[in-house]
């Protein structure tokens, strides 16, 4: 018994202390996957805030965007033209979703809209396979002038290896969050978006066009999905399996709160770092592979204590 307590509560921390450079390496790996989780969660939050739709299709949007990019490039389209076209594809998708899914279902219960986004998921899987084929593809990382090498950081009496693509991902993610923050804080579209998120009726009464706002958020979520797809594709490859990884956004959302942009980012980082630390230092005790379910366990524990998430709005309902 004492031996078990030692392996669970003492030994991992001793390891962290004695091999600090390795610990930093683990933290960095966790941070990078955390950033990607955060980006997917960000897409969910944007749409949920403005339209109260839980967009199950966010994960497949990531795959679809990355697939379109690689697919277009394979057809001979130059990389940056393909990137531009993909932005247009995400815009077309946003318009189509508003016209064909959201508008006919306005004022329907949330669960109906949720089911509709599941339908959208399967539609996009089918469309992606039909047009670009289902086999895994390699992201056009170097064609997009993204760095592929790595830096070695001599520190703490050892070395930490930083992939340049990971650094690029962190920078691009930070820039994207900053742009979104500026747009939401300063422009009338941002004000309108926050208004729609708060109260549909009041927003309509001051002349905010709901349809436009929906297109704007779905488009923003689409662009976020495209960026996520590029970064994730560069780390592994572009395949439909990515969609399963995108489900990791769920525990992130539980942790951060469904309506909070800072929550999505913090939640993503916590889950990313938490599951890497768990896998490396505690995983061996259970035979490894705990990375795939630890996030859900964290989320489950969190639900018991703070169901609205770290930054979510507290739900108080009169009964």
């Amino acid at each position, binding site marked *: 018994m004492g031996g078990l307590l030692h392996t669970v509560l003492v030994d991992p921390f001793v390891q962290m202390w004695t091999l600090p450079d390795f610990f930093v390496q683990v933290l960095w790996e966790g941070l990078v996957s955390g950033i990607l989780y955060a980006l997917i969660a960000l897409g969910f939050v944007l749409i949920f805030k403005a339209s109260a739709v839980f967009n199950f299709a966010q994960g497949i949007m990531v795959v679809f965007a990355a697939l379109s990019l690689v697919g277009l490039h394979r057809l001979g389209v130059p990389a940056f033209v393909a990137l531009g076209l993909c932005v247009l594809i995400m815009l077309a998708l946003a318009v189509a979703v508003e016209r064909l899914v959201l508008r006919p279902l306005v004022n329907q219960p949330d669960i109906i809209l949720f089911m509709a986004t599941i339908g959208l998921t399967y539609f996009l899987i089918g469309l992606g396979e039909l047009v670009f084929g289902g086999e895994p593809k390699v992201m056009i990382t170097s064609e997009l002038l993204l760095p592929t090498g790595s830096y070695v950081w001599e520190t703490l009496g050892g070395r930490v290896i930083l992939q340049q693509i990971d650094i690029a991902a962190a920078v691009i993610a930070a820039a994207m969050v900053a742009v979104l923050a500026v747009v939401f804080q300063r422009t*009338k579209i941002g004000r*309108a978006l*926050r208004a729609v998120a708060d109260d549909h009726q*009041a927003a309509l*009464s*001051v002349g905010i066009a709901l349809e436009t706002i929906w297109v704007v958020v779905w488009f923003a979520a689409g662009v976020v999905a495209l960026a996520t797809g590029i970064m994730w594709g560069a780390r592994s490859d572009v395949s439909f399996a990515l969609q399963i990884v995108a489900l990791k956004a769920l525990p992130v959302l539980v942790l951060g709160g469904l309506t909070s942009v800072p929550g999505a980012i913090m939640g993503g980082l916590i889950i990313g770092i938490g599951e890497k630390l768990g896998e490396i230092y505690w995983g061996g005790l259970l035979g490894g592979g705990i990375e795939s379910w630890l996030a859900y366990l964290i989320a489950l524990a969190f639900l018991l204590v703070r169901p609205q998430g770290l930054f979510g709005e507290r739900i108080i309902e009169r009964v």
Partner: protein
Amino acid sequence: MRQRAIGEVILAVEDVSLRFGGVRAIADVSFDIRAHEIRAIIGPNGAGKSSMLNVINGFYRPQEGRIVWKGQAHRAMRPYLAASTGIARTFQNIALFKGMTVLDNLMSGRTLKMRRGFFWQALRYGPALEEEIAHRRRVEEIIDFLEIEHIRKVPVGRLPYGLQKRVELGRALAMEPELLLLDEPMAGMNLEEKEDMSRYILEVNEQLGTTIALIEHDMSVVMDLSDRIVVLDHGQLLADGPPEVVSRDPAVIEAYLGVAH
């Protein structure tokens, strides 16, 4: 007595009927609102008063009848059309943007008046900056007028009920409407707050010439403020006329007090 020239008919409700499934909320009601007047809509609970406001600003589409707004006949209004052609409103249960500050709530009322592209707004550059400043100035005047300077930067959700009602009026005023629809602007207020609100409504009407249609339950307020009163009961028009006539109408007295049997 107030000195205002009551103008032509600015809005006419013609033979409007509204049903929800089998329930008739409004049954064949017609009345009009003249420019610069204060028009009250009264009636017992469930009379169809709020439904009527919702028809006027396009939240509800009536099955029959039409709305003539500034000379244009519409089968039904649309919220965007109403807002962009000068109809602003407040809500019975306060519909504010609770997470946003008082200032941002009022600025949201300027949405339709902002013209500059959002790219320039994001950069806070040149004409967009001037435009933002101009709108801010207008909003600050309204804040001044409603005496809410001290809470400008407070998120609306934290304010007490009476102040929220005032902010909601402010957001409607920020739209610089020609017709202002007020759904129970004084519900749940104490006497002092009611007097303040009455004063604001009168000043808006007198100084800006804004036409006002209001729903209110406090009869002394209604009698003092309004030029003409529409009385609804069970979705039907019961009476229509100046306060002194309506208050003596036997049908109105019966609807409100019930008859002794």
